[in-house]
């Protein structure tokens, strides 16, 4: 059975998750680079901390030891699994 992953954009808040895949091709080059610089990569632990304005707007998430704000469109390219 193929494993299915959730998008970070819609993942429940304050639940530990691990980055499964990142669709780098869906991101613009500067976005992809900054995401890498923030430490996003396969296997890294992440956690959605806050979402602004019910439904749209950016999300704040913990990656490694830092908290970053990214837009939902970018978060949608990040697939995570629980735990």
């Amino acid at each position, binding site marked *: 059975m193929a494993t299915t992953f959730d998008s970070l954009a819609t993942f429940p808040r304050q639940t530990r998750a691990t980055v499964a895949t990142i669709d780098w091709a869906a991101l613009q080059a500067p*976005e992809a680079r900054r995401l890498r*610089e923030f430490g996003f990569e396969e296997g890294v632990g992440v956690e959605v901390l806050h*979402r602004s304005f019910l439904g749209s707007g*950016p999300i704040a998430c913990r990656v490694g030891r830092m908290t970053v704000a990214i837009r939902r469109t*970018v978060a949608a390219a990040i697939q995570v699994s629980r735990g």
Partner: protein
Amino acid sequence: MNLAPLVALVGNPNAGKSALFNALTGARQKVGNYPGVTVERHSGRLALDDGRPVELVDLPGTYSLDPSSADERVTRDVVTGQGGYERTPDALVVVIDAANLDNHLRFALQLIALGRPTVIALNMIDLAERDGLTLDPAVLARELGVPVVPTVAVRRRGLDELRAALTGLIGTAATPPAPEEEIAVLQKRARALSRAAVVSETPGRRWGAALDAVALHPLFGPVILLALLFVMFQAVFAWSEAPIGWIEAGFAALETFVTTLIPDGFIQSLLTQGLIAGVGAVIVFLPQILILFLFILVLEASGYMVRAAFLMDRMMARVGLSGRAFIPLLSSFACAVPGIMATRSIEDEKDRLTTILIAPLMTCSARLPVYTIIIGAFIPNRLLGGWVGLQGLVLFGLYVLGILGAFVAALVLRRTVTKGASSGFMMEMPKYQWPQPRDVLIGLWTRVEIFLKRAGTTIALTTIVLWALLSYPTPPAGSPVSQVDYSVAGRIANGVEVIVRPIGFNRDIALALIPAMAAREVAVAAIGTVYAIDDTEGESGQRSMVDKLRHRWSLPTALAFLMWFVFAPQCISTIAVTRRETNGWKWPAFMVGYLFAAAYIAAGITYWASVALGL
């Protein structure tokens, strides 16, 4: 002559480079708790233990040597010796946040690979300990192959050790740079190193997370942001009353003193009606400006700025900007010049240009005197519902109008002259910190110096020139024409009045608008001088100016004047900094043009609407 060795402070944003720079060199560079505080290279002197001098440079924070904005480009250029910085640093001080080794070590690894003599400052070690992290610097030093010095820049801890390490490094030869590696590879090594260096980790108090749960709450977050801004503008009025009274009393005493000391005539008139009336009318606003700066400095130092950017991102996205642009815009409430400089941290060029063009719409502190005096004269000092001052509310409304104007301008600009793909919003959210009283005081003091210098130079000079132009020539005895109307300035103003009469402006306003280009506060100084010269009873100070305004201006005229300054054609410094940041005259010319047009139209609409309403 031999140049002093060059040492560069490099590292991630918010690692504490500027704080360390200040601690090592005694400089007073601005420090703050958000990415993008330092946007240019600053240089200072430092003496090593053996007496050798070293030139220390503070650089904008960046995540790698692959820059994505103008400020990060400076760091890359200085470190690698490109773009006009031919002298590569003789040594690097890599500043890393002890509480975020996983991320900061990756950039440190990239910098160490350059082969330059390097020392690591393991900064903010106290905060890491507060978070329950115990680190072993020796492990890091062994694994990285460079000295590692624990520091707490704001408490001046570890500075001697850092200087000693530098003394040992300066003069050692650089090794050839190692081949560049992928970010992912470096990141894995950084994580492994971080794991090795952490001796123990106990979950500390997560008060930052608790604070964010409120500050970033989908509903409470925006309410708190609005409330903060609201309290800020209420405080500008509420807290400044007493100190303004002292300054006024001081100037009144000075005027009496000058009048008794110097006989009636040219010199006395120049000093009292020209200098004291003009400069005094402006200096009176120092308390209000400092209160405003206090709020902004505390917001900048606490880490709240990025939270505000986060909350504003969605709204900013609607007008084609990102939350990131909100930080320079909020700084522009203090002054548009540093605000425009701060746009260097915006990645997208079109985004940055748009932010520069709308920054003057953020009500800067120089407009406070104009707003205050008109509000003081025409808006009753009443409390609404027992606690909200009506005057503060009107002031808040003017700020909101500026913000709305900026949004509309951004919307139009992004669809016309600065068209382009919308950029993203990606920002690190720094940990909350208590503002350091010392940094806040330095920030305020710097402001006092700038303000008094402006009052003593630009404002004083403009006022004296204006006084002279208003005092001469004198009308022949018995002439029905008043002194002001007969003077050179009065004649010019009567000419300008023709253009501004349709929007309800009188001669006095026409007269104030031209010198206000030098500095907006001069509008107040100019009106102060006009009334001092026209005045026969010899009363002066802000109180009497308010009385005169009430007699001479109608309410629609006053409201139109306020509206003019919401969109006010900016001061010369803003135009100059815009020219520098956009490399030419095209954009500043455009900015002046569109703001003049907007001011004229908005003031006109306000005037005629209030007349129609019978105000």
